[in-house]
């Protein structure tokens, strides 16, 4: 069963206190949730935390759960900022709500879409998940702009990110459509790529708007 929102908040606060601030335990008053909140009982019953003399400690299973919770929170922050372009307090607030939805594989999708980010917008580390390890092991760059490709590298076009409709149409007229194979044959002085049996040259401005998957 899913944890309640408050329970997730407590886990996050505890994880930050223990893992990042190197404190032995979390004082509930810093979690912003009073000790009589049912969320503490919920966590204790699931054997994720332990409460001794008014202080919160991780149980071994709780540490892993906390890690995944903080990961979801920070991924949500990244999503808010990078993709949805919501910043500041509002972004943080939205992220708090959003993270609770990132369960059951959704976090993997988001993480992959964001190309396995390592830090949240505030610079705090995002604990890597299975998908990140796997991507690293496979040497999978994930989705990157064409400018990150080396010459000779081949990939699939993932998406085009541009505000300019005309640019988008130019690219599409060249056959730069999501799903098509693309081979970068040269990266300097201009980007030269092949789609199908045609070759095209574009400048950096256009190249950085084409996102490709290896």
């Amino acid at each position, binding site marked *: 069963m899913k944890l309640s929102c408050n329970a997730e908040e407590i886990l996050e606060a505890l994880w930050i206190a223990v893992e990042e601030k190197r404190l032995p335990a979390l004082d509930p008053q810093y979690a912003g949730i009073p000790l009589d909140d049912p969320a503490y009982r919920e966590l204790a019953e699931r054997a994720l935390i332990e409460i001794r003399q008014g202080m919160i400690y991780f149980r071994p299973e709780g540490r892993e759960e906390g890690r995944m919770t903080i990961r979801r929170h920070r991924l949500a922050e990244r999503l808010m900022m990078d993709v949805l372009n919501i910043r500041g307090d509002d972004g943080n607030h939205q992220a708090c709500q959003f993270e609770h939805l990132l369960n059951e594989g959704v976090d993997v999708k988001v993480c992959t879409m964001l190309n396995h980010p390592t830090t949240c917008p505030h610079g705090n580390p995002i604990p890597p998940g299975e998908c990140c390890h796997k991507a690293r092991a496979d040497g999978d760059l994930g989705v990157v702009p064409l400018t990150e490709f080396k010459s000779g590298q081949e990939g699939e076009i993932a998406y*085009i990110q541009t505000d300019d*409709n*005309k*640019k*988008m*149409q*130019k*690219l*599409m*007229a*060249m*056959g730069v*459509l*999501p*799903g098509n194979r693309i081979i970068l*044959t*040269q990266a*300097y*002085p*201009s980007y*030269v790529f092949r*789609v*199908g*049996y*045609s*070759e*095209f*040259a*574009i*400048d950096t*401005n*256009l190249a950085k708007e084409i996102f490709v998957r290896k």
Partner: protein
Amino acid sequence: MAVDGINQDSLSHDGKPLRVALVGNPNVGKSVLFNALTGSYVTVSNYPGTSVEVSRGSTVIDGQTWQVIDTPGMYAIHTITEEERVAREILLHEKPDVVLHVLDARNLERMLAMTVQLIEANLPVILVVNIMDEAERMGLKIDLELLQQRLGIPVIGAASTRKRGLDEIRVAISSYGTQPRIERSFPYGRLLEYDISEVIWLMTGEYLLSRRSLAVLLLQGDEEITEMVRHKEGDGYAVLAEKVREKAFERRDSFHLDLSLQRNSIVKNIIQGVFSEPDKRVITISDRLSTWSVRPLTGIPMMLVVLYFGLYKFVGEFGAGTVVDLLDKRIFVDIVNPWMITTVKEIIPWEIIQELFVGEYGIITLAFRYAVGIILPIVATFFIFFSFLEDTGYFPRLALLVDRLFKHFGLTGRAVIPMVLGFGCDTMATLVTRTLETVRERVIATLLLALAIPCSAQLGVIISLLSKETGALAVWGVCMLLIFVLVGVLATKIMPGEAPVFYMELPPMRLPQLSNVFTKTYTRMQWYFIEILPLFILASVLLWLGKVTGFIGTAINSMTPVMSSLGLPKEAAVAFIFGFFRRDYGAAGLYDLQAQGMLNARQLTVAAVTLTLFIPCIAQFLVMKKERGWKVAGGIGLFVSLLAFSSGYVLNQFLLLTGIL
């Protein structure tokens, strides 16, 4: 095969000749097909990025005269660039009886998207799958029969450079319309279909294109189509516009992408089983050559070799040296002029009229001699060089190589074509600046062409003049380069506007067909000659008038202070007065001065620099006015003249001070 004039029975029922329009992506061989169909070597003009004109020719198939219309390349019915717009005009307003969609067999999948659009627009389309020979060499297989079935239109495989498929195309054109046309459309997704039908439902006007395709174009926000529909719909337009706005807003994020993806999947279904490719890509020699030409390490030396042998050796030394010597000295000065002078003097008794034809500024002794003896060989060799290079597919590669550099001047690599063409004829190049995308690029390119790019005739004369004095050519070259860079960088800083974007298709490198190169050269020469000869004659007449009335003497005298501030003898003013008519005319004037030994090395260099920078010839000025408007053209003219003389002054002082020359 080409016929002039149209006889009565070859007309269709409404009194106009039948028309067939060639459309398609750039570089798919439309022009070659046009030539092959019309058999005319008169109106070839479609080269990637060098022409925005439409050319027309005619042919007779089965006793019926057809007008064949060649259009600039376009990528889709929804147009982005000026050339595409020109091409679409034909489809929108000329109601062609047959539309030949020419595409490149190797890129069937990508280019079929446009075939689908043309069919959707309810145009009478015949599909020509061209360049089959190269596709076969690469191991690609295309089932044309199946493709024809799926599309519901005639499909013909061709290799127009080898005249393959030509007869089938002729048959298809002439028998088109005899078979009933099958109304066929390729449905998009349900939601998109719904949106389109809602827009169609509000349209009441009569159009040449199908309402369905117009509805899609409206949703794409095509300005020209919107304007046309507004005009046709009248009062009902407001409701329609509201609906389009509403739909466009709903789909604001991804309409273009959705549409392209859906078209792509339509095409994927069509070519399923039609198109098959080998497992391994075949790498040809042309692929290798292409790679070498774009890698900076090999590409830059290659560029220098091309420029040295092409421009310097072939155009400069051979064209402006050997051929000019032969034509001007051996033929005109030694044979034609003396003979003409005696003949004219025998026929016409009045000395003043004799002067007009065979005098100092005579139409025959000066205008014709300059045009034919000096300018023609230079321009001809340049156009041979340019057309050859163009057909190899080298220019787009040069463009990508210099793009980064050109960005500093507010231009993209695309501008390399007008710039190189400018070394042939600045007037023609100014016309071609139309292919640049933003107004800002066009203005900057126009300015640089007017200022620092000498045309071939001028260049030829200047090279042959200055190469006689050691160092003079180098000083001139450095000056030009410096001013080009300086003005380019400044113009970029001063002129408002967004940074330009560079994109270009690279056609495969090919060994040009000589017949094609000469056809293009011939066409360009013809254009050039029609443009210059009247101006030369006009100049002769005006100069003659000036001499007769004593105006020239006054003008030369009044320019003496300017000339002396440049350290030049007052006779040099003549070259500048000539130069106003045509740059090359002015350069040729310098040639005469030098031949009379009136200029030393320093004076020659100063005069050459000033004259190269000086106001463009009348023809170029008129084209500037036509393309950019009075204000811009006038501004550029004024700026260029001021800069020319001040640069001449500074250079003269510099040379006097340092004593380099």
